[in-house]
């Protein structure tokens, strides 16, 4: 697994999560917009997929996905650390 693979998977995750974040803010002030509600459900689905894809290969993003044989929550790089860390 190259550093670039991890970067690409993380970027896909960030894109999916950000789409959901921005849509949720719009929905906070437009709760009855059907199109936005639909778009949000799709965005959440995309997040779940991207998160599973990242977690499988590179470790947990959410704490509920950590652990197993050992507690790996602190094994993997933290967001401000360089790729190679």
């Amino acid at each position, binding site marked *: 697994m190259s550093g670039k693979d991890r970067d690409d998977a993380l*970027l896909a995750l960030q*894109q999916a999560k*950000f*789409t959901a974040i921005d849509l949720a803010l*719009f929905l906070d*002030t*437009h*709760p009855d917009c059907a199109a936005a509600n639909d778009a949000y459900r799709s965005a959440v689905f*995309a997040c779940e997929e991207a998160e599973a894809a990242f977690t499988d290969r590179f470790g947990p993003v959410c704490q509920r996905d950590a652990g197993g044989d050992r507690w790996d929550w602190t094994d993997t790089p933290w967001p401000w650390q360089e790729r190679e860390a």
Partner: protein
Amino acid sequence: MNFYRNPGAIPAWSGQTAAPAAAKRGPLLAVPYVRPQEWETVYAPAKALMRGTVFPCLDLPFLGKGGARK
């Protein structure tokens, strides 16, 4: 608390959306007004992250250059 004694009274908590007449009222005096945004086709996720929003209508980039021109 009974807010219905006075029709001009304001409920202390309301989860309701505004009555349609109120929403169409538009800007009031002495209150800041920002026009509510309407839904539009959103950017794809890759572009959205790069631009900082999913909404093209709110994508308002900085085009300034620094300082005095010589």
